[in-house]
């Protein structure tokens, strides 16, 4: 800007001075336009994500009498019932995510290999549909197959295997979770595996590496951010899942989402503050998992 001070005043006419102020007004208007355009978006984000989140964070620390207290949290951690809910939630999320990840990884890999054939295209489409088929419809379908008079149950009984799967138990619900997590895992890992350049593999072979060595020294490390990212999404998805377990057990399975719902929309007493506390714990669990993920990403990603 110093050049303007020493510059002979030949360029600034009245005309251009007017243009200058016009421009700054115009720039201001442009910025106002921009903020108006994004206002509805921001409003909805605030109203339906941030405000409720804020409400939960605040109200977790109030009790029914309106006093600020840590009582809710204390009650949760001293109650066997609530601790079981937390434990089961973590357990089912962890198990279903890991198993789905392993099966889905091979699934994505296999899909990538056959993706150009007609069969491949059909299977990709079916996979996409299945990843959306969760919740109440899935629960009902599972009951029809594995319920007390379900198809599979009868088939297995004919073969002499009874009581293999109780769909209303932990294992049954785990099975249901895996059913909708596998297509999701496949869908999420597919782009990453497609991104593995074929000539890396060819290069590795030329340099003498076996398929095994290539996989563990090149393929897996390159894919690890995508794998970890997928795991996080699967885990968060399972942790927050409500409809499937609810529909299977009519709300009697003890996991956090069902516990929370029971406290705000159940037939018993309304305990919004306790529900908020439980929700806070749920969100914190997700937060911790995300932090660990970011940390691992930072450490292992060059």
């Amino acid at each position, binding site marked *: 800007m110093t050049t303007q001070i020493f510059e002979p005043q030949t360029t600034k006419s009245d005309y251009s001075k007017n243009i200058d102020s016009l421009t700054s007004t115009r720039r201001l208007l442009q910025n106002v336009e*921009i903020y108006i*355009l994004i206002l509805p978006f921001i409003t909805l984000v605030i109203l339906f994500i941030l405000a*409720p989140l804020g409400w939960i964070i605040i109200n977790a620390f109030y009790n029914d009498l309106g006093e600020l207290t840590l009582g809710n949290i204390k009650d949760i951690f001293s109650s066997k019932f609530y601790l079981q809910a937390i434990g089961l939630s973590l357990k089912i999320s962890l198990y279903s995510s890991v198993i789905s990840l392993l099966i889905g990884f091979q699934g994505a890999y296999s899909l990538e290999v056959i993706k150009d054939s007609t069969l491949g295209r059909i299977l990709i489409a079916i996979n996409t549909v299945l990843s959306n088929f969760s919740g109440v419809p899935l629960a009902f379908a599972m009951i029809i*197959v594995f319920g007390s008079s379900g198809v599979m149950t009868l088939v297995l009984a004919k073969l002499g295997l009874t009581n293999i799967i109780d769909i209303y138990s932990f294992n049954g619900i785990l099975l249901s979770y895996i059913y909708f997590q596998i297509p999701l895992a496949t869908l999420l890992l597919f782009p990453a595996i497609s991104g593995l350049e074929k000539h890396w593999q060819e290069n590795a072979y030329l340099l003498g590496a076996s398929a095994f060595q290539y996989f563990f020294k090149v393929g897996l490390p390159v894919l690890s951010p995508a794998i970890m990212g997928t795991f996080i999404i699967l885990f968060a998805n399972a942790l927050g899942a409500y409809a499937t377990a609810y529909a299977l057990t009519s709300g009697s399975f003890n996991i956090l989402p069902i516990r929370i719902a029971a406290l705000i929309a159940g037939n018993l007493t309304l305990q919004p503050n306790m529900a908020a506390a439980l929700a806070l714990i749920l969100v914190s669990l997700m937060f911790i998992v995300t932090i660990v993920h970011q940390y691992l990403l930072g450490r292992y990603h060059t």
Partner: protein
Amino acid sequence: MSNQPANTINSPMGGKQRTKSEVNKIYHSLYILILLTIITIPIASTGIYAISGNWSQSILPESWTFQWLLQIWTDERFLWACFYSFLLCISGALLSITLIFPVLLIVHTKKPHWQRWINFVLVLPFAVPPIVSSIGVLNLYSDFLNNKIGAILILIGCYFTIVLPFVYRALDSNFLAIGVKDLIESSNLMGATSLKTVFYVVMPNLKTGFIVAFFISVSFLIGEFVYVNILIGGQFETIQIYLYSLKNLSGHLSSAVVISYFFILLIITAIINMFSGSKRRG
């Protein structure tokens, strides 16, 4: 000699062998086929149950009938549930696209450095799942939830948060594919105002993105259960709520609903695939 397909080789003992990559492909096809067959057993069984008459102890039904499907598709309650489901899903999808499109426009032209904040916002729906935000929504907006119109509006707002990341991603990839910055600059140089440019140049080239975003939203929202179950308290029903109400009644009827729902999903996915494919080709 030259009539053989490229992937077969002559083995020294005479006859032909498949090459390694052919074997590979078979293995992979088999894995996926088996995997997806196992996964479709529940749906297939449901489908069979929906059109079976008597099916108590044998592997396949004893009799077949379309009466269950007929029954639900003529049931006024079910049809109302369908109406509300589609009303909510379509409104949610349209609202989300309308609100998110301007944001993308701005990020791709004037304020690219906002991308970091946007990425944070896109992660929020995963970090704050419906079961969590519904507590806050229930308590903050209880007044609005008392009447039908209010409940519908609040639901649509909640639905916005569910589909937000997917709509953004679908539109974003279309934006990237068309080189929107050059198009806008070119149009501006030829005298078109920003408004004209958006309507005549930008939006016509985003048709694929809009369609994919719309149908992805609908496919997510149609399976939504948490918000409706907790927030609307029986004022009206969606397909999911209706289905749940059939739980301890007839298994045949609920199967009919499930299989109908599955086919709706199938159609929506087919449409999505149709348009994502053409995006890649073009």
